[in-house]
């Protein structure tokens, strides 16, 4: 019981710290890629900037625009944040550091993060703003579409390891990471692309495309409500990266260093990869994005599943 509460508090602390660190890191990476300095004034190389930003967001007035649908508008930030936080239940930080090793861990993560769609749609609907509504609609369509190749690529990992438990999948990679097997390498690429779309990042950030939709579904939010969307986005990035690290890159396994260090290094490298893509690639169009998911990614994932299933039966 006490252990449960302690691991819960540890996870909450980790989420807050990680989100703050990632926001600073994203600004620094974007600055380096664009040959700028980024935040420099608050603390050494701007390290205290996220704390200043947090205080600013806490002090801001919480404005409710006229004509909103109060229930959806008020509940939406929670619908986006809570599923992301609950996904931490099954993340294995090391061989012993896992809040609760569910025997259906992978399925749990995929299902619990799918609730976010509803939150994004509620935000879009409740804000009484055409940009928000368009952003919410686009986001829902995008997340549903990219969930198909995502689940198909995760399914391949489950077939290879024969278990749905996160720890079980890590243990199945003791003699080599899954990413080094050819069919799972394809699945890894598919997972990376579709998870980038799942968390609404460039090149798939159509729901909040600022040049056409202001800020998409969170246009009307201010103060802490906006901060919750922000934290949810960065935590979701960490969750998909941590899942990818667990499923394909051997999780906490690695020589010399303790498991936690390896796990965090792999996860944050994948987060860095997402940021790198964001500041390198242009945004794709809505129709291009949808046809990419349905006409290219899903058939490749299905074919991959079929061929590797056939090989697994034969060998």
């Amino acid at each position, binding site marked *: 019981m006490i252990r449960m509460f302690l691991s819960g508090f540890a996870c909450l602390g980790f989420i807050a710290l990680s989100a703050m660190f990632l926001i600073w890191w994203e600004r620094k990476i974007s600055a380096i890629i664009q040959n700028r300095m980024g935040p420099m004034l608050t603390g050494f190389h701007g390290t205290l900037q996220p704390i200043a930003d947090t205080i600013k967001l806490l002090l801001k007035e919480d404005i409710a625009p006229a004509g909103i649908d109060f*229930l959806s508008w008020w509940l939406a930030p929670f619908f986006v944040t809570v599923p992301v936080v609950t996904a931490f239940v099954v993340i294995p930080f090391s061989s012993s550091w896992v809040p609760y090793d569910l025997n259906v861990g992978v399925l749990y993560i995929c299902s619990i993060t799918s609730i976010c769609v509803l939150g994004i749609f509620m935000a879009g609907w409740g804000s009484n703003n055409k940009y928000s509504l368009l952003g919410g609609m686009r986001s829902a369509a995008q997340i549903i579409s990219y969930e198909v190749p995502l689940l198909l690529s995760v399914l391949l990992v489950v077939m290879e390891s024969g278990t749905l438990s996160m720890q079980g999948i890590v243990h199945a990679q003791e003699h080599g990471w899954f990413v080094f097997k050819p069919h799972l390498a394809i699945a890894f690429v598919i997972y990376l692309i579709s998870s980038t779309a799942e968390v609404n990042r460039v090149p798939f950030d159509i729901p909040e495309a600022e040049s056409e939709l202001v800020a998409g579904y969170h246009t009307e939010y201010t103060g802490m409500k906006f901060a919750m969307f922000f934290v949810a986005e960065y935590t979701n990035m960490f969750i998909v990266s941590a899942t990818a690290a667990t499923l394909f890159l051997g999780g906490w396994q690695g020589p010399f260093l303790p498991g936690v260090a390896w796990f965090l290094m792999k996860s944050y490298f994948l987060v860095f990869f997402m940021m790198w893509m964001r500041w390198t690639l242009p945004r794709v169009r809505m129709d291009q994005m949808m046809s990419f998911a349905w006409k290219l990614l899903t058939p490749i994932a299905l074919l991959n599943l079929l061929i590797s299933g056939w090989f697994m039966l034969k060998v």
Partner: protein
Amino acid sequence: MQDLVFYFIAGCACVFAVLAVTQRSIFHCALWLAMTLLSVAGVYFYLEAPFLGAIQILVYVGGIITLFVFAIKLTAHIEDKSIRQLNTQWLPAALISLLLFYILIQAFASHPWKNIIPNAPVTSLQVIGRSLMTGYALPFEFMSVILLGALVGAIVIGKVKK
């Protein structure tokens, strides 16, 4: 303590279910329905059936409710205040529902539950998969044919006539 958790989740499910059918705005109804289904998933998790709980969330909340919301958004005037919540057959429907409720209560009350609760069967994924492919192969295939039929039907209806 453990019972309190169950009563809390079950109570939530009941309250949300009532809200899902009494709210005026159909979008709110869909949201409360989502909350109800989430609470039911919570009951599954509480009863140590995480597979069922995860599938419940993935299929109902992630899939079906999202489709509901899309349908509501794409249907013109469905959010209007003038739309009636009851149709002409509300009285017989209410009577039949009450009768069904009575029968269910009788059925549950006459069943000796206490012997079952302590040994909840630990169903692993392998067991579920094996039974789907052996003992329940026919219903499983039947379901997939029905879903395929619905899929093809939706495409035929949605296709723009030239």
